[in-house]
């Protein structure tokens, strides 16, 4: 450790506001219970993606969702992406546009996109919430088929599009974006995955065959668009970005890129990049001091266990087996399994999809958004997967798969083996839609994680976690250093009851989406976290001991030892 700062439990407790939660009395089992409250809560905008019958590949991939606290009031807001309607599809004025929903508390959200200046129609793909200019307000980066938008938050509940000014507009078909301080200069750079070099007019009307069904063509046979790495110039460069893809060694063959992730996968203190590619090998860029080497073929993260390229869509990363390193999970196309790459801790990975019982459970589905979450606060990472096919025409054939599919919740048994508990996880998991991006957050600050799901040509699903809370929890919000206010890249380790859980602060998660920046740890029966260890993006470490459970803890870089360093907030 470079710097070890300790706070005594007594000292820390003196600063903590109680959450108002009674001491937990823990029944042995927490039964999942997710209920869709999107309509009542006001998440009613329709994510439109071209024609309903899907005339081209452009119309089947939208879109992501980002969770952020845009107005800094402590309640988490929701930003949902949409594509565009074709000329011959009538839509309501509030549909087919990005929607910003302000959390008014009590499960009521108000649509504020128009007043906030983020509702202009684009062919949207994904969204990330990032304070790229370190002014303390979370901005929004919206990837599009066409120019990307960077909506700068002015702190007055309004945004300005500065995408062109900041040189992040990229006139391409961008999909996933992963922000991080890749070059360790203190500010946030971004890796942007791109999908296709696409000619809408040429693509429309072309038909191909999939399992005997006439469908739109692609991506195979269409030219892929190369991914781009943009370096932030920081305050001296007026927070403008420049293309450093080649200089950083982030080049590979152009693949059909979807989700991108920044994570210190080899635990050496800098951020590596992993990209889920559609029908192509996935990419693993190892960061060696700001210069990258692509090693997915060498560390077994490129393909399936049996050497096949898969249709990578979304990806999740967490320490599902609680061995201290970050594992990877990639959702794939239907009639193929989703893939769990277990991190062996030595720079290599092992495909554990079937051993962890995630392989077979995914064969019929086409997976998109995904995320590890401890939905029952029992201290291990469970898994959520959003599903939905790309071809509406599959419903007209007996293909064992449907366009609208059930989403899935997998329960981790603590030993890294999962069980699909969707059928008994409440009415919210019985909804069949063609889902895409997902994000998790404790939207009502009640100590459990809720889930937002984007559905193509439909309103979102808002899965409120109504399970009886039988376990304890801890939510941690990081306040980073000068140019990285979200502490993106920080690694937090929580020890409770002898178990160690590891999470990272990320911008860019799941499928083209963004989970809440708050890290949620289930503590099981433990009433305190014996130890919270934070490795900040600059490599320095802080440790907080004996933190009471069931509260949000804010940890500030460089101030953990000071009286304001640890702040617990009850809502």
């Amino acid at each position, binding site marked *: 450790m470079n710097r070890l700062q300790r706070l005594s439990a007594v000292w820390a407790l003196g600063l903590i506001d109680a959450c108002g939660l009674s001491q937990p009395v823990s029944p042995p089992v927490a039964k999942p219970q997710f209920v869709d409250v999107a309509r009542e809560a006001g998440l009613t905008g329709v994510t439109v993606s071209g024609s309903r019958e899907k005339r081209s590949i452009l119309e089947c991939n939208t879109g992501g969702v980002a969770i952020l606290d845009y107005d800094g009031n402590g309640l988490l807001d929701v930003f949902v992406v949409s594509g565009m309607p074709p000329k011959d599809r009538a839509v309501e004025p509030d549909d087919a546009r990005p929607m910003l929903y302000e959390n008014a508390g009590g499960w009521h959200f108000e649509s504020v996109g128009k007043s906030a200046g983020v509702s202009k129609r684009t062919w949207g793909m994904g969204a990330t919430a990032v304070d790229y200019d370190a002014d303390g307000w979370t901005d929004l980066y919206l990837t599009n088929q066409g120019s990307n938008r960077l909506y700068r938050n002015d702190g007055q509940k309004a945004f300005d599009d500065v995408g062109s000014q900041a040189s992040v507009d990229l006139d391409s078909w961008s999909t996933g974006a992963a922000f991080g301080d890749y070059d360790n200069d203190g500010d946030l750079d971004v890796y942007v995955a791109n999908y296709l070099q696409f000619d809408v007019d040429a693509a429309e009307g*072309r*038909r*191909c*065959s*999939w*399992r*005997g069904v*006439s469908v739109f*063509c*692609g*991506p*195979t*046979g269409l030219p892929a668009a190369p991914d781009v790495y943009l370096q932030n110039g920081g305050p001296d460069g007026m927070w403008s970005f420049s293309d450093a893809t080649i200089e950083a060694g982030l080049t590979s063959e152009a693949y059909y890129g979807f989700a991108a992730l920044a994570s210190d996968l080899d635990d050496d203190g800098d951020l590596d990049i992993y990209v889920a590619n*559609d*029908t192509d090998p996935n990419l693993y860029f190892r960061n060696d001091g700001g210069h990258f080497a692509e090693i997915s*073929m*060498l*560390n*077994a993260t*490129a*393909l399936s*266990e*049996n*050497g*096949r*390229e*898969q*249709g990578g869509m979304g990806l999740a990363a967490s320490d599902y087996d609680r061995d201290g390193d970050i594992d990877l999970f990639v959702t*794939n*196309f*239907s*009639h*193929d399994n989703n893939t769990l790459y277990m991190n*062996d801790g*030595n720079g*290599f*990975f*092992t495909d554990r999809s*079937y*051993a962890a*019982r995630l*392989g*077979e459970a995914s*064969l*019929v589905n086409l997976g998109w958004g995904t995320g590890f979450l401890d939905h029952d606060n029992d201290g291990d990472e469970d898994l959520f997967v959003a599903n939905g096919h*790309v071809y509406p025409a599959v419903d007209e*054939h*007996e*293909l*064992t*798969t449907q366009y609208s599919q059930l989403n899935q919740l997998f329960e981790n048994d603590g030993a890294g083996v999962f069980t699909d508990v969707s059928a008994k996880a409440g009415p919210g998991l019985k909804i069949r839609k063609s889902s895409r991006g997902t994000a998790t957050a404790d939207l009502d600050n009640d100590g459990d994680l809720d889930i937002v799901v984007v559905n193509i040509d439909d309103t979102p699903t808002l899965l409120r976690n109504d399970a009886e809370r039988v376990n304890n929890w801890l939510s941690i919000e990081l306040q980073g250093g000068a140019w990285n206010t979200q502490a993106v890249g920080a690694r937090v380790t929580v020890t409770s009851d002898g178990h160690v859980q590891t999470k990272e602060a990320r911008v860019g998660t799941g499928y083209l989406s963004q989970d809440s920046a708050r890290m949620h740890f289930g503590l099981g029966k433990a009433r305190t976290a014996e130890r919270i260890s934070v490795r900040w993006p600059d490599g320095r470490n802080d440790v907080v001991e004996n933190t009471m459970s069931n509260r949000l803890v804010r940890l500030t870089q460089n101030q953990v030892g000071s009286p304001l360093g640890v702040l617990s907030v009850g809502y």
Partner: protein
Amino acid sequence: MTSGCAPCLLLIMVLGCQPATRHRLRTCDSVVVGSEDSKSLVSAGSVEALHETGCNHLRSERYLQAADTYSQLVERRPQDADAHYYLGVALSKQHEKTAAVAAFEEALADAPAFVEALWSLALLYNESGDKRATAIETANRAVELAPEQAYCHFVLGFILFSHGQDGESAKALSTAIRLDESALHAHYYLGLLHQRVGDMSAAIKAFEEVIERDPQYAQAYYNLASLYSSAGRTEEGTRMASLFRQVSASRAKEDQFRVMLDQQDTDGYVHNAGTHYGLGQVYLKRGLLDRARSEFEAALAVDPKHAEAANNLGVVLSQGAEPEQAVSQFLMAIRIKPEYGLAWGNLGQSYLALGKYPLAEKSYRRAIALNEDSKATKYGLGTALIQQGKVDEGHYFRVAAGR
């Protein structure tokens, strides 16, 4: 988006093996591609002719046409289990999975002890994702009917593998290898099972064995790349990764051409000669001469003036030790494109192989005049000259060839 479990498709065999089954599948082995006889039989509309035409299409990987032909056949002879089976093969190759399942089920209705239909069906059930038990049961029936057949055990092992039933899968795969040491897929999947349980040296051995038997088995390179690397053999790992890319790039190109052909089928277009030619090139580079030949022939059927296809068909024929037929193809290429230096050089090579030295000399000289002056051409000319007693000039060209 990917089309899912592509390898499963590959496992459905066109020709089948020779099973000791209650039902004996008629094979397509004896069919001559494009023979006049078969054309006349077709016009006569006989059942035999339809079988032969269908087989021809299957062997040439013209699955749409094969499916049409076998559809006609099953209409005429609804009890013909073989026709249903081959219809199933043609349909599954076109990813018409539901229709393929129906065809195989029809074949089994007519001939319940039809091993090839059983394993094909088992693979399709497996691929559907929600019929695991039925897939395993069907594969077991195939094993019961033909316990001496390695492939049946492999199919069972593969299905069990894909459902994480590792122990039972290992047993079935080991049986397949015991019955047929050259059962490549069984070696590969057994390697994966070793890898799953962490027996890395056994896994490495299995994958090395696969590559030794088939250097085009791309997946084994991928597995070896990480296994070598994690064992500290980084250079070898990197070499394996590079070989994987090389081999799979060729596969990817093949897939791309196939998608184009599928698309043309769907759109009702006549197959483009260039697509067949491109696919033929891929096969030729991989040494798959039969497939290359079919594609070049298909290219010429669409565009008889495709000089490059004629030339490459000649190359395939000469590599297949058919120099006389090769000569006809090179001559055809030259007729289409008289200034085609490469074809002149190839013609010289074929004449040389046939011992027609003056003709070889003439062809080589023409090639050189057209700037097709590769070392092989010069060396060939040298040889043709020496064989005719023109020793000095012959040596001159051989020296010029640097040999």
